[in-house]
Each structure stands twice: as C-alpha cells, then as structure tokens.
C-alpha cells in the first residue's frame, strides 16, 4: 500500500498551552484510521493541522507527494502563497462537527459551490455530479432545501456530499456525529460505512467506539497531545498496553 498522508513531528501550542507534542502518523491509501481519545486530548487540533486549518508550530504534513503549505527549497520549507495552499487543502475533504453548510445556499448549491468556483466546472456538469453524490448519501430529494430546513443528520450527510464533490484524496472527519441527536447518529455512520467499504481513505476523529471497532483498519488513541497507542482495533480496544489508555477505554466502554 502506498502512503497517502505522513505527518512528521507535528507540534502545536495555543499560547503557553502545548496541545500537540511531536506527533508522527502515517496513513496508507484505502485505509480507515480512527483517532480516539478523551476531550481536550488534541485530536481535533491534530486533524485541523493535517489540512492546515491550523498551522502547526513545528513539523509538517506530507500529502500525496507534496508538503502542505510549503515547498522544499534548498533544505528549507518555503511558505506557499495562499492560493496554492488552498489547492492542496481541496485534496483533503473535511467534514466538521457542526456541519458548516453554507446557510445562504440550497443543498444542491452547497455541493456544486466547490466544483464550480474552485475547479471551474460548468453548472450543468457540476449539478449532475452533485445529484449523484446526493443520491449516494440519500439526500437527493432535499436538493432544493436550505440547510435550516434539515435535521442534523441530514445536514451532515449533505456536508459529506459537499466534501466528496471535490474528489479529495483523503476524507477527514472531525467528530461528525458529536453534535447529533442520538437517533440521528446511525444515518451518518451508515454513509461513512459505505464510503469505507468503497475504498475511500479516511481519517476519523470520533467518540463512536463501536464504529471504530467495526470499520477502522487501525485505531490511534491520543491522550494529552500524544499518541499513546496505535494498532488494529481489536488489539487496541480489547487489550491496550498503556495504563492511561486502559483508564480512558474503561470509562467510555462502561
């Protein structure tokens, strides 16, 4: 398997608070990686560093043959112009905890916005592809609704379609079900399960241990800005070596 993402020595501080302490991570194409950990362990920040929504204070992220936000030039990292960084970011699809659908656009408008504005697709073509994606997430019937008319689960499924519309190399999910009513979690996980089955490379920050156990190829547990445990889900979830990981898992599995 060839590598899709390689994070090298990622450090991030907010003021004096060190959120990420020298993190390394590799994700291969076709792999589904779940990042677990208690609140405040830095897992969302790590995900946001991977696609440069947060700029790391140290280290770098390599995605599919290029370093995010930089060009390697005479042994140093030269910061890229915003436009080129955005082009790199569009290779990583992001799904947010709070959906962040564009409130002034319809469901269809949300999905065609990226392809039309960033990739210069024609409206008809963008719409045809968007309808396919909406079909895939079961939201085609709501194409002309506005986000405010949708339930949380429906919004998140549209958000997934919007991210997929850019045909990203890797999909990033930042606690995609944490803001949902319990009865709506299932429909979103179902869409993600289908994506995983289809071979999409995914990095998922989640609290859904069951989903991680069932879908993930590999699980990473972060505590206090460090990766404390990594491996196959059954191994990490059933028999963790690290005592703090054991404490965390016993609390969430209880």
């Amino acid at each position, binding site marked *: 398997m060839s590598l899709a993402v390689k994070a090298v020595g990622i450090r991030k501080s907010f003021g004096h608070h060190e959120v990420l302490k020298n993190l390394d991570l590799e994700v291969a194409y076709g792999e589904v990686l779940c990042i677990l950990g208690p609140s405040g362990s830095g897992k969302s920040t790590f995900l946001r560093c991977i*696609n440069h*929504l947060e700029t790391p204070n140290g280290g770098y992220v390599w995605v599919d043959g290029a370093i995010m936000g930089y060009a390697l030039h005479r042994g140093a990292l030269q910061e890229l112009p*915003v*436009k080129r960084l*955005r*082009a790199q*970011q*569009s290779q*990583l*699809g*992001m799904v*947010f905890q*709070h*959906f*962040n*659908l*564009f*409130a*002034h656009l319809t469901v269809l408008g949300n999905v065609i*916005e*990226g392809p039309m*504005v*960033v990739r210069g697709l024609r409206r008809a073509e963008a719409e045809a592809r968007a309808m396919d994606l909406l079909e895939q997430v079961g939201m085609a019937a709501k194409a002309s609704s*506005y*986000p*405010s*008319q949708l339930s949380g689960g429906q919004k998140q499924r549209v*958000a997934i379609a*919007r*991210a997929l519309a*850019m045909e990203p190399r890797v999909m990033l999910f930042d606690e995609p079900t944490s803001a949902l009513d319990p009865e709506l979690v299932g429909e979103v996980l179902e869409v993600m399960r289908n994506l995983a089955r289809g071979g999409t490379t995914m990095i998922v920050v989640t609290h859904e241990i069951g989903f991680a156990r069932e879908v993930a190829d590999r699980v990473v547990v972060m505590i206090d800005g460090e990766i404390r445990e990594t491996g196959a889900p059954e191994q990490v979830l059933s028999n963790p070596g690290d005592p703090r990981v054991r404490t965390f898992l016993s609390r969430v599995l209880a």
Partner: protein
Amino acid sequence: MTRSTSNATSTLSLTDLPGPDVPVRRLCHPWRWISGGAVILLLAVIGRAFAVGQIQWPVVGEFLTAGVIITGFGWTLLISACALALGVILGFAFGIMRLSENPILRFAAWLYVWIFRGTPVLLQLLIWFNIALVFPRLYIPGLVDERMVDVVTPFVAAVLGLGVNEGSYLTEVVRGGISSVDRGQKEAAHTLGMTPGQTMRRIMLPQTLRLILPVLGNSAIGMLKFSSLAATIAMGEMLNAAQRIYFINGAVIELLFVCAAWYLAGTTVLSIGQYYLERHFGRDAAVAADRSWFKGRARRAAAVREA
C-alpha cells in the same frame, strides 16, 4: 404554585366542576380604554390647533405640486441615491479593509472611520463645498486639470459630504456583519479550496448582506432626510427651493409643511421597500420560522412510510 392560590382553588370540589362547554369570560382592560381615549383627545386638540392656527392650508395645497418643489424633490432623491451608493461602496471597501491581515490597511480604515464619523456631517458638507480654498486646482497628470470650483459643484459637494460620512458608519456596520457570520463558514470554504477573495465574495458577503439589510434600509431613510442639509451649501434641493420661495412670499410654515409631506411620502415608500427586501432576502430565515410546521409534516410523512 403558591400556597394561597392552591387554597383559593381547593374549595372547588370535583362534583362542582362545570362541563367542557362552560363559557369563558375574558378579562376587561380598563386602562387600555382610558389611555386610548386620552390619546384620541390629545390628537383632537392638536388637530384643532392646527386647523384654527395661522396656517393658510390652500397655500400648502397650491405649492405641494409646484414645479420648483417637485424639481427640488427630484434633486433630493438624486443626491440621496448617489450619496447612499457612494456610502455603501465605501462602507464595504473599508469594512473589508478593517478585517484585513495587513495592519496598514486596517489602520487606514480605522483612520477613515475616526475622522468622518468623528466630525459633524454639516461641517463636512461645508468643508467639501469650500475645498477650493485649500486646493484651487484639481490636477491629476494626464487625466484632469481643472479649477476645483468647477469640479466640486454644490451637487458634487453634497454627494461627497453625505456619502463619505455615511460610508464611515457603514464601515463599522459591514465589519460587524462580516464578523458575525459563523467562523465555520470560512473554514468550510477554505477546505473546499476557495481563495480568500472567493470566500469573501461567494460565502461571507452574501450572508453579511442579509444581516445588515435592515441597517441599510435605515441608512436609506436617514439619507433622504440628511440630504436636506445640502440646502446650506446652495444646492437647489427641496428644502432650499422651499426657502427661496418663502423668502419671497413669507408663507414659511406652509412651505415647510409641503416639504414635510414630501419627505414623509419618500420615507414611507422606502419603508415599504425595506419590508419587501428583507422578506425576500430573509427567505431561509422565514422558512426557519415555519419549521415547527415543516417538521411536523416531515415527521408525519416519515411515520406513514415506516408503517
């Protein structure tokens, strides 16, 4: 529930309860009737005072449609429209600069607001009108070379004075509007690969516009009235025209009333326009208000499908 009320109702035993069709008598509100009556009385007194006062109503009627007044009102509308357009353009330009990452752009926008919001608009009008005293010639190499008095006519001075002043207020309005659009909208646009310019134009500004539309409506109404200040710089708008007439015929109050009627007519039309604009642009907000109805239907439909 307090003890005293439960005591008061506790004397009603179950056997004494009335049937379901028992009539309901509403509270009567005597103070509503009294205050309403007082206001009607007051209006009647004021109305009578004006009716018997020293006002020649026929003169008001006569000048209401006089050519000079109508032309003046036309100028009033033109000044207001141009000044508002200038104000909106400046407001958006400086409002966006105010949020720039470039500290110099930020400072320039701050300076603009500080100066033009910090001085009276009447004073600014007088300065624009007299700008030729400072810069006798307007000279831009290869473009313009003219005497300033020929360039800055009363009309231009009025539009510049009112528009630049309005722009300083709208700068703050636009800045506030952009900042209040949810941060996640910007992040979502960035992850799709949209550049800062695309994000601003396609994602932030449309949502800002909807947020600040009520304020823009207020600005339009305010501008229509502030344009009367241009009367002081010899601009022949409506108030100035009225003044020139009453200097001759002495019907001061009559002509001022004529102006009041036209201003009221103008602001009324603008208020109605504002209502429809807000209704149009607030369409997804309006749908959100209907949501309980919508959700109820959606749930019922879903239930039918499951069954």
